[in-house]
C-alpha cells in the first residue's frame, strides 16, 4: 500500500516535470509512538475508509448519470421530483453510520482525557517564542529555543535551509522523558495562546495564559520526536519547535542528575577574553534577543526598538545592566540570565559588527551588580 502511494505520488511529480533529491511525499497521518496515537490513527483510517466508500457510491452514481443521461446521447428527461422512500433511506443510513463512528470516538475521547494516576508531571509554559519546561518532581527547569543553525538560516537569506539539519524542527535543549511511564503534562502560557503539538504523541493542547490544561502520554520506544507550536502566536510562531527525546529509565535518571547539577552551578565569574565574551554573547543574543530586535539589531518598526545605534545600548553601562535585569512593560526582565551571560550579552550588543555598534569596551562577569537579588 505504501509503495503504491509513493508510486502514485512520484507519477504526479514526474508529470509536473520537477525533480528533487529531497522527495518526501508523506500522504497519510503518522501512526505515532504511543497507544493514544495508535488509537487515533485507527479512528482516522476508519473514517477515511467510510468517506472513501460513500464517495465512490455518490460520485459513481453522479458520473454514471453524467455519462448516460445526457442530451447529446438523446436521453429524454424524466420528470420525477420526489420519492419519500429513498429520502427516508438516505437519511437513516447516514445516521446509523454516524452512531457507529461515535462509539469508538467516545471511547478514545475518554481515554485521552484520563490523566489520573500519572507517574510524573511536566509543566509546559508557552512564551513568545520558545517553550519553558519544568519537571515538578525533580525540579529540572529550562527553556527550549530554536537551535542556532535554524535561527541563523531563517534570518540570513544566503543559507540554504536544506543544508541545516532538522531545519526549524530542532531546539537547543530538548525535552527529555522516560519511556513507558505515564507522564502528565500541564500547559499554560506567559503572554499569548500557544499550542503544544508532537504528532507522534497523538495530540495537541493549547497553552492559555492564566489557565492550566492537562494531557498525558506514555511513549512506547526510545527516540527523538519533533513537533511545533500550532496556535498562531505572533511574528515567530513558525520558529518555536518542540523536540522530545524519549529514553530508558536509567538514561533518564542520569540525564536528570546531570541537568540538575548544571542548573544549580554558580555562574563562572572568572575573567574572559574579549573574543570569548563576544562569541558567547552572540549565542545569548540569538537565544534571547533576536526574535524582537532582529539579527542586524534594527528591530521592527512600530513593534520593537532598534539596538543599532541605540543610546540606551551604547550609553553608560550601569543603567544598561539595570535595564536588562528589570525589563519594562514591553520588554521582559532578563534577570534569568546569570552574571556571566549578562556580561557576554552586554559586551556583544555594545560591540557587535552585526548590530553596527562599536563602543569599544567590555564588561567582566564579576562587574555585574544585581538590581534585584534573584536568589531565593
Amino acid at each position, binding site marked *: 500500500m505504501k509503495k503504491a502511494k509513493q508510486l502514485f505520488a512520484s507519477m504526479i511529480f514526474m508529470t509536473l516535470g520537477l525533480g528533487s533529491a529531497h522527495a518526501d511525499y508523506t500522504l497519510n497521518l503518522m501512526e505515532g509512538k504511543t497507544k493514544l496515537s495508535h488509537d487515533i490513527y485507527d479512528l482516522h483510517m476508519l473514517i477515511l475508509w467510510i468517506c472513501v466508500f460513500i464517495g465512490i457510491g455518490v460520485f459513481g452514481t453522479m458520473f454514471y448519470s453524467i455519462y448516460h443521461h445526457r442530451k447529446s446521447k438523446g436521453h429524454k428527461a424524466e420528470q420525477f421530483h*420526489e420519492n419519500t422512500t429513498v429520502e427516508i433511506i438516505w437519511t437513516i443510513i447516514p445516521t446509523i453510520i454516524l452512531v457507529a463512528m461515535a462509539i469508538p470516538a467516545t471511547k478514545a475521547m475518554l481515554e485521552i482525557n484520563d490523566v489520573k494516576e500519572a507517574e510524573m508531571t511536566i509543566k509546559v509554559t508557552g512564551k513568545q517564542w520558545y517553550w519553558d519546561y519544568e519537571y515538578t518532581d525533580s525540579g529540572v527547569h529550562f527553556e527550549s529555543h530554536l537551535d542556532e543553525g535554524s535561527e541563523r538560516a531563517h534570518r540570513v537569506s544566503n*543559507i540554504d535551509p536544506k543544508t541545516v539539519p532538522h531545519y526549524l524542527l530542532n531546539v537547543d535543549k530538548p525535552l527529555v522523558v522516560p519511556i513507558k511511564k505515564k507522564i502528565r503534562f500541564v500547559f499554560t502560557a506567559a503572554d499569548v495562546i500557544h499550542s503544544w503539538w508532537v504528532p507522534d504523541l497523538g495530540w495537541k493542547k493549547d497553552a492559555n495564559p492564566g489557565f492550566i490544561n492537562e494531557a498525558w502520554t506514555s511513549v512506547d520506544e526510545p527516540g527523538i520526536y519533533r513537533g511545533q507550536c500550532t496556535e498562531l502566536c505572533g511574528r515567530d510562531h513558525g520558529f518555536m519547535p518542540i523536540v522530545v527525546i524519549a529514553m530508558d529509565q536509567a538514561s533518564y535518571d542520569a540525564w536528570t542528575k546531570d541537568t540538575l547539577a548544571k542548573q544549580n552551578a554558580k555562574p563562572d565569574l572568572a575573567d574572559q577574553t574579549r573574543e570569548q565574551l563576544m562569541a558567547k554573547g552572540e549565542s545569548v543574543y540569538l537565544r534571547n534577543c533576536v526574535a524582537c530586535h532582529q539579527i542586524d539589531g534594527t528591530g521592527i518598526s512600530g513593534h520593537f526598538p532598534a539596538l543599532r545605534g541605540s543610546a540606551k545600548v551604547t550609553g553608560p553601562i550601569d543603567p544598561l545592566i539595570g535595564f536588562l535585569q528589570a525589563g519594562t512593560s514591553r520588554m521582559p526582565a532578563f534577570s534569568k540570565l546569570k552574571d556571566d551571560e549578562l556580561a557576554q550579552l552586554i559586551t556583544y550588543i555594545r560591540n557587535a559588527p552585526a548590530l553596527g555598534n562599536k563602543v569599544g569596551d567590555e564588561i567582566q562577569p564579576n562587574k555585574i551588580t544585581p538590581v534585584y537579588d534573584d536568589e531565593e
Partner: protein
Amino acid sequence: MSAVIAEHDDHHDDHDHGPAKGLLRWIITTNHKDIGTLYLLFALAMFFVGGAMAMVIRAELFEPGLQFVDPQFFNSMTTMHALVMVFGAVMPAFVGLANWMIPMMIGAPDMALPRMNNMSFWLLVAGVLLLASTLFMEGGAPAGGWTLYPPLVLQTGKAFPFAVFSVHLLGISSIMGAINIIATIFNMRAPAMTLMKMPLFVWTWLITAFLLIAIMPVFAGAVTMLLTDKFFHTSFFDAAGGGDPVLYQHIFWFFGHPEVYVMILPTFGVASTIIPVFARKPLFGYASMVYATASIAFLSFIVWAHHMFTVGMPIAGELYFMYATMLIAIPTGVKVFNWTATMWKGSMTFETPMLFSIAFVVLFTMGGFTGLMMSVAPVDFQYHDTYFIVAHFHYTLVPASVFILMAAGYFWLPKWTGHMYNEKIGQLHFWLSAISVNILFFPQHFLGLAGMPRRIPDYAVQFADWNMISSIGGFIFGVSQLLFLWIVIDTIKGGTGEKVSDEVWEDAKKHGLEWTLPSPPPYHTFTTPPTEIPTEHF
C-alpha cells in the same frame, strides 16, 4: 404632503423613472439591479485583491526559507486575505446576487427598503476601505488571524482600533442587507408565490438573512470587548483581571460557525437553481431541500466549539460538540443526494454554469468528508490547526462558494446584459480552475497529516515538495481567474454578439420567473405582479 405628491404627479405622470445620468447614477441609486451590479463588481474587485494576498502567501511558501516577506507581514497577509475574501468578496457577491435576483424571482418590483439598500452598499465600501487602510499603518495590518484571538490581537499596532471599527461597519452593512432581504421576501412576493413555491435561492437567502441578524451583533460585541480591553482597562479576556481569553473564542465561534454557513447556504440555493435547468428536470426533493437548509442553519448555532477541541474543555462539552457536529452530515448529505437525484435520468447538457455546478457538488462533498473527519474530536487533536484544516475549509469555500459564484455569473450574465458570453473561453476558464484548484488544495491534506501547522511563513524541508506543487496550482488558479474578468468585461460590451432570448437557456421559463422577463430586463420590472408562476415541483 399632498402638495408634494401633486407636484410629483405633475412632472412624472406620463413616463417611467430611468436611472440618473452619469456617475451620480451609481452613487445615489436605489434600484435593486444597479445596487446588485455594484455589489457584484465590488466583490469581483475584492476577489482579486484577496487573491493577490493569497499569491504572496503561496510565493513565500514556494520553497523553505524566507524569500520575500517578513513573518509579521506574512501573518498580516493570512489575516487580511481571510477578512477580505469573507467580508469583501464572498458575502458581498451573494448579497449582489440577492439584490439582482430575489425581486425578479418572487415577482417584486424592487427591494422593500431601497434607500437602506444603497446605504448598506456604501457602508460596505467604507468598511472594506478602512480595513485595507490598516495595511499602511505603523505596525502593519492586523496579523493575529481573521479570528482576532486575544491576547495576540491586542499586540496589533496602530491598526487595531481601525480594524475593530471596520468590523462594526461591515456588521451594520450586513445587518441592513439582511433586514432588507427578509422584508422583501415576506412582503413583496407576487400573490401566487407562496412560501413553499419560492425558488430555493430565495429560501436559502431568507434563512441566511436570519443567521446574519443573529450573529453580526455578537461579533460586533466581541470586538468591542477587545476594544475596551485594550483602551479602557476592562479584562474580559485577560486572566490577570479575572477574565478568560477562551471566552473570546466561544463568542467568536458562536458568530463564526453560522458565518461560514452564511457563505455556503446561498451557494446551495444557486446550485439548486442551476442544476435543474441543465438537467431539464425539476429539482428533486424541493421540500426536503428547504428543511435541510433550515436544519443546517439551526445546527450551526449549537456546534461552535468544534473549532476549539484542543482549547481545553470539560469532557462532557467535548463529547456534546462532537455529537452535534456529526449531525450536520445528515442534512448536508440529503442535499448532495438530492442534487445527484436531480441529475439522475435527466437530459443533461454541460454549459459553463453546469460544469461549475457539478464541480461544486463533487468538490464541496470532498470538503464535507474532511469536515466529517474533523468532527471526530480525538482525531481532530491531530488535524487541528494544520494544513489539513486549511485544505478542508478551502474546499468548502473555493471550489464550492467561489465556483458557484462563477456559475451564477455565467448563468445570469446573459439575462443581466442581454449578451451571450464566450462559451469556449468559459469552458477553458472552468477546466483551468477545476484542475488547478485541486493541485492547489489537495496536497495540503497531505501536508497537514504529515505535521505542517497552518499560518507559518517557513517550514521544515520535508514539507517542501507538496508546498511547491500547491504553490504552482495556486499560481495557475490565480492567473486563470483573469479569464473570468475578461469574460465579464467582454459580455458587458456585447459578448459574442448573439441575440439571447428571454429564457436564455432551453426551457428555463419552466424553472423561474426571471426567465419570463426580457434580456436584459428593463430598469423596473414586475411593477404589476405576475399572475402565473412556474411550479416545476408541484
